[in-house]
């Protein structure tokens, strides 16, 4: 019970190192271990979600060293939610992978587990430097996973992805260093207290550090002008990897949400709401650029990658609002976009497999072996992504629209959100009709899609429907999460060594 918050970290850590230790074990054992470890995260994170539901912050002091001196993990509603989302996505991604994609290169499952280690750690830690470490874990694992299967396209994409992130890591260290150099602490809550009391001789320096962190998180989150690595990377990745990567941008957004509510949030004195003025325009241009990218795409996977950019811009709108409504809407949209993007990447792979050499290229091609099944899934997912009723994309967008206060910013944000939605509608109807209808000849695929793969894909996509059915409790949860994030005093207690 007391160790609950660390379990989502330990589970993949042990699984990963066991897989490493037994790297000569048979494929079957590795797969079973990986599946078991990944799916075990699901009940675990549900449990954590239930625990977090009592609105208490759970602090886990590693090594029994009290904050602010030791590293602490923090389980609140937000982290529990992100963990659950990760578990869901990972579960289906690994399910998809065990049907053959894991054999395209060595060490897939170990890397997969370490990837989860990094992601879960990033969601749980309440220490800024430890966040850096977990970022690095998830990055190095993602570099390796992105290259899974090798090949020219992956090399090109990875090179950009890796080098940009290495520069980003340098920014992170300079930012953390500056913060430490002025405040002498690393615990986020303690930092928040120190930053709040900074005087005019320190505030600009702290602000510079804050902005560097914003850039780092923005790079991970793929915000304009930092998203350029994403389209190629996601388009090049193996399907289960691309699906798992749907959560990667969200890690950046999570970090923005965490750091810029707690450390540079409303309670930060001279530095209150440091990021908010920049987030508005960034959200709008990111969304727009993503839509144009989706319209421009010549390949399904690239289009999906741009959809990820669009989702980033969209939910950044909610974060930019800085209000409980905005955060709640952003979180709902985050859940939606992660699940659906993940499912879409798997679906794109299923489609590409039935188009022979053409793969995901958006051109006239051979008939699919299972046009109705795949087409139906695509139609379903496209509706959800474009934000049309009755799926979660619509509800998410509706929440966002409702969260924008009516006034001049609403004019901008509504226009961007709605016109962006229209753009996506055009883009997706183009690609869908090309893939499923501009076909001729008999199917080139020998057989239909693997059942487990379909299950993995449909499982994620059906999340969208589930999110509509369970919209009311979900909304209640995300609203409570947003309120919790904005009520800083319990968090600040942690910095003073108390477990609030």
């Amino acid at each position, binding site marked *: 019970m007391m160790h609950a918050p660390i379990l989502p970290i330990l589970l993949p850590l042990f699984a990963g190192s066991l897989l490493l230790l037994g790297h000569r074990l048979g494929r079957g054992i590795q797969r079973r271990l990986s599946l078991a470890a990944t799916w075990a995260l699901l009940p675990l994170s549900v449990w954590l979600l239930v625990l977090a539901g009592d609105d208490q912050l759970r602090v886990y002091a590693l090594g029994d060293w009290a904050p602010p001196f030791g590293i602490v993990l923090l389980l609140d509603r937000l982290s529990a939610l992100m963990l659950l989302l990760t578990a869901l996505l990972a579960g289906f991604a690994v399910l998809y992978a065990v049907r053959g994609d894991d054999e395209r290169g060595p060490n897939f499952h170990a890397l997969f587990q370490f990837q989860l280690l990094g992601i879960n750690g990033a969601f749980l830690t309440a220490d800024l430097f430890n966040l850096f470490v977990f970022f*690095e874990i998830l990055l190095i694992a993602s570099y390796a996973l992105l290259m899974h299967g090798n090949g*020219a396209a992956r*090399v090109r994409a990875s090179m950009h992805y890796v*080098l940009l992130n290495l520069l980003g890591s340098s920014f992170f260290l*300079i930012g953390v260093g500056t913060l430490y150099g002025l405040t002498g602490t690393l615990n986020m809550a303690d930092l928040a207290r120190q930053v709040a009391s900074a005087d005019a001789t320190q505030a600009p320096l702290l602000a510079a550090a804050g902005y560097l962190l914003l850039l780092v998180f923005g790079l991970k989150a793929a915000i304009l002008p930092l998203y350029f690595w994403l389209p190629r990377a996601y388009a090049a990745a193996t399907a289960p990897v691309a699906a798992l990567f749907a959560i990667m941008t969200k890690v950046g957004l999570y970090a923005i949400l965490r750091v810029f509510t707690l450390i540079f949030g409303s309670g930060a004195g001279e530095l209150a709401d440091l990021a908010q003025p920049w987030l508005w325009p960034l959200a709008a241009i990111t969304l727009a650029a993503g839509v144009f990218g989706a319209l421009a795409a010549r390949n399904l996977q690239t289009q999906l990658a741009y959809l990820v950019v669009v989702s980033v811009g969209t939910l950044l709108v909610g974060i930019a609002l800085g209000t409980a409504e905005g955060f709640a809407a952003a979180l709902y949209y985050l859940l939606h976009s992660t699940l659906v993007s993940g499912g879409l990447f798997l679906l794109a792979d299923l489609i590409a497999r039935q188009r022979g050499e053409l793969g995901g290229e958006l051109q006239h091609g051979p008939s699919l072996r299972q046009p109705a099944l795949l087409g139906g899934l695509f139609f379903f997912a496209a509706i959800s992504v474009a934000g049309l009723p009755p799926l979660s994309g619509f509800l998410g967008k509706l929440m966002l629209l409702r969260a924008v206060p009516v006034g001049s910013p609403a004019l901008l944000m509504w226009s961007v959100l709605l016109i962006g939605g229209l753009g996506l509608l055009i883009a997706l109807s183009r690609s869908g009709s090309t893939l499923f209808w501009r076909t001729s000849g008999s199917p080139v695929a020998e057989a239909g899609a693997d059942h487990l793969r379909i299950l993995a894909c449909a499982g994620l996509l059906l999340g969208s429907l589930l999110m509509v059915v369970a919209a009311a409790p979900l909304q209640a949860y995300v609203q409570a999460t947003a309120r919790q994030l904005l009520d800083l005093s319990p968090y600040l207690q942690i910095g003073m060594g108390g477990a609030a």
Partner: protein
Amino acid sequence: MEALFAITLGVLTASGVYLLLRARIFPVVMGLTLISYAVNLFLFAMGRLRTGVAPVLGKSAEYGDPLPQALVLTAIVIGFAMTAFVVVLALRGLGEVHSDHVDGREPDQ
């Protein structure tokens, strides 16, 4: 001394950034190395620059701030892992795209 130290960091950073912005992978890796020198020294300096105060108990009267040192250690190790990955990625690139250009293709192509 702090001023000179800061200027040195600046020169390291500037050289590193310039190299980072080159088109071929090897200069880029060297740039990353220089940047990581600068960043590590920066992070280290955040515990302030003092002589003869190594944080080993019993070895001196006063002790410097040990925390940034521990952080830099972690950063150095992580930096090494990353550098190793990048150079091997470059090798893979050489095998797959036959170019050491960071964009994975020769500029004329």
